[in-house]
């Protein structure tokens, strides 16, 4: 029974992977933004950043941009459920003898894998742009990428379960994804931000993702890696739970 469920999770995971690697335009298109951020901000703001005594901006920025691309890909993977609903495929999974949790978990795992892969690609691009990571903590860095991916795929799933079509997508971009990104400390250091903003940052799961990733790759972090990882694990369990609950209430 257990292996049966695992196999079903694998099948649903495989579907997400196949779909992702088949849509090349999406693959290439999603790399445009991180490159733009690395070039425009990295080279544009770099000198100012260095003058302010903060050191090399690329070292600071690259983990943030990696986190960003994982965030976008992960949310989008979750939101894809809306497409499945519109194109009817969701019904096929809903009448199958598979629990709703298994469906949600399998596809979230697939989405998270895709998003993590995207993070690795951006990591390599950042290295071309001049990023020089510390190589000792690559494994924890990979773990942080996976955790960020899982948290936000689950969030995307949760949101998509409440929406019926793509009209709400812009709303999500502007009121969820963008604030989560800009208030994550991905682009600017925390020192000197007003206390109110600081608490907003602390309430943002991506903050811990960026902090952990930056700690592992650049040796700059506010919290210990254990704290960051702990928070992310807790949030991902919470979001997967909420996502599964909302998903189980979908009617097709």
């Amino acid at each position: 029974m257990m292996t049966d469920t695992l196999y079903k999770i694998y099948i649903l995971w495989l579907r997400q992977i196949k779909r992702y690697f088949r849509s090349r335009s999406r693959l290439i298109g999603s790399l445009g933004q991180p490159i733009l951020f690395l070039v425009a901000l990295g080279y544009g703001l770099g000198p100012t950043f260095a003058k302010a005594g903060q050191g090399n901006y690329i070292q600071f920025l690259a983990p943030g941009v990696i986190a960003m691309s994982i965030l976008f890909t992960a949310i989008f993977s979750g939101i894809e459920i809306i497409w499945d609903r519109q194109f009817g495929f969701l019904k096929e999974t809903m009448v199958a003898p598979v629990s709703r949790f298994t469906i949600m978990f399998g596809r979230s795992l697939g989405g998270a894998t895709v998003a993590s892969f995207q993070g690795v690609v951006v990591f390599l691009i950042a290295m071309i742009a001049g990023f020089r990571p510390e190589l000792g903590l690559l494994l924890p860095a990979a773990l942080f990428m996976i955790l960020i991916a899982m948290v936000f795929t689950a969030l995307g799933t949760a949101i998509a379960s409440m929406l019926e079509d793509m009209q709400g997508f812009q709303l999500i971009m502007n009121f969820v994804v963008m604030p989560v990104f800009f208030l994550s400390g991905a682009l600017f250091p925390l020192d000197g931000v007003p206390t109110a903003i600081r608490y907003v940052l602390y309430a943002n799961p991506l903050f811990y993702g960026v902090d952990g990733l930056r700690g592992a790759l650049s040796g700059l972090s506010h919290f210990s890696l254990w704290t960051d990882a702990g928070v992310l694990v807790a949030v991902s369990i919470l979001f997967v739970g909420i996502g599964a609950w909302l998903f189980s209430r979908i009617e097709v």
Partner: protein
Amino acid sequence: MAEPHISVKNLVKKFGDFTAVADVSFDVPAGSIFAFLGPNGAGKTTTIKMLTTLVHPTSGSILVDGFDPTKNANAVRHSFGIVFQDPSLDDELTAYENMFLHAGLYGVPRGETAGRIKELLHFVELWDRKDSLVKTFSGGMKRRLEIARGLLHTPAILFLDEPTVGLDPQTRNHIWEYLKKLNKDRGLTIFFTTHYMDEVERVADHVVLIDHGKVIARGTVGEIKSQAGNTVTLEDAFIKLTGHAIRDEEAGAVDQLRQRARAWGRR
């Protein structure tokens, strides 16, 4: 009459104040081709959704292949295949991958999966196109693939919600040939809805006609015609029994969701 394969008693479904299915009872004999007819909005799709575990009834009882969909959903889900009114394939996958995915979700023994997929794709004459993406398929090909997919886990019952809508007469004939063959060779029980009355006259063993969520006629095609006053065609009988008024399409779950969301916003 054989043991009923699907048994429905006093089935009711309400969405808020709206009654989609008022009181429906019928039996589907095992191995029969059963036509479930009615105008748009009569409650056909809602009934199918209740039979196939997608929607919970408000009251009444259902047995599908001996199991209650509200209590033993997974047993019911193993017992039937379904072809929905709208396509439900993954367009970005190939025909073979769609089949493979279905086999995985239904727990088809892995040793048998490849053989069964091959047999069924040959049966619906899509084996040559097994590695083509489904988005390159015509409407008729998609339907055939959905029928093949619906049979992959060897169900005893096949539900078809308007399987031939939007298809040309050649394709419609073709699809019914497959279905009749399955019914004859494997004893598959076929439960279908359609608006093409000529199809019903040609293939159906039993007919149930519903309107406004209630059964208004039942029996063989001949019996329905005589109930309507010995009409020449089933189409005449259908119009005589359900009236001339044009119906609005019944709201799907998504529309109901929209209504609910609106009601929520008003609070």
